[in-house]
């Protein structure tokens, strides 16, 4: 599924199949393949490890809004709506997860071991903690790739 054309990044950047920028991206076939592969692994894993699909989309939505990336916000909002569970991050667990999303996105250098311990305490498995970390970091990556593609598209 990772060699589909257009992929999630083309769609988000608004790149048509035959556009010069879509072709430029394909000069880096391994980047295209594993970027889509990462998106699939992070948002539709075979084993979610305790971090559910709606929780994943809601965390991504939070990162997108912290970065003021309206295209990404719309993307994750739409996927959350499609899952039919608009507010999956509730209670102590949800608050702890959201606090981690905010910290890792905005102040990664301020993270501490206590933050990981807190996630374990509210019931996240080690698998879920790593999935959450990968997800937050991935959306931060994704927003920057998207910003670069938009820049090149606008400057064509």
């Amino acid at each position, binding site marked *: 599924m990772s060699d589909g054309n257009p992929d999630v990044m083309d769609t988000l950047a608004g790149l048509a199949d035959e556009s010069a920028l879509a072709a*430029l991206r394909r000069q880096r076939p391994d980047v295209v393949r594993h970027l889509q592969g990462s998106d699939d692994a992070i948002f539709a894993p075979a084993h979610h490890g305790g971090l559910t699909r709606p929780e994943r989309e809601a965390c991504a939505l939070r990162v997108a809004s912290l970065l003021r990336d309206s295209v990404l916000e719309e993307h994750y909002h739409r996927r959350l709506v499609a899952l039919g569970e608009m507010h999956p991050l509730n209670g102590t667990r949800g608050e702890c997860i959201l606090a981690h999303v905010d910290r890792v996105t905005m102040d990664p*250098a301020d993270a501490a071991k206590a933050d990981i311990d807190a996630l374990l305490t509210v019931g996240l498995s080690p698998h879920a*903690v790593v999935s959450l970390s*990968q997800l937050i970091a991935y959306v931060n990556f994704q927003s*920057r790739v998207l*910003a670069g*593609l938009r820049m090149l598209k606008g400057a064509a």
Partner: protein
Amino acid sequence: MTRPIRNFTQGELDWQPWLAPVDLDAATDEQRAALKITPSNRTIGAYSLVLAHDPEALEQRSPLYNAIMFGPKGLPRAERELGVVVASRINGCAYCASVHAKRFAELTKAPEVMRRIQQDGVQATLEPRQKAIVDYAAKLTRDPAAITPADAAPLRAQGLSDLEILDLTHAVAMFAWANRLMQTLGEATTPAREGNPL
């Protein structure tokens, strides 16, 4: 004994996980498969073993990292490292900044550039092409929403092709990812066994 580091160095560094790494003897087949390809050439370290808790994500991220940092042609490797050092400094990741400053120096035989960046940060006086790369890397790291089509002009003026600009974008973005994993799943430490410049 180890101690946390907050400054930037070219000395040897280590990384201490905050989450118990996967025990290689007890690893699942999927975790073993995901660990086969790692971004570094060294034996499997604590960092990869922590990431192996989510083997599906790791299995994709390692080849993505390699494709971005080592893909042929396009932006010279040293200039990818330059973008990565800037991102890592701004994100506060001493470990990443130090490792990649060293790679840059090895590739260019120009340690002076990294000395200037270590001393003066992204305001360091550099040759125009390096300056354009540093400025774009800094802006993309700090606030991707602020990037506009006008930001491509200084890069193009220094002769960067669109493929090179895409490569730079990928490298800087990859460290928005890597710096966040490194700093939030554990911390860089400096081994106390020998005299370290810190």
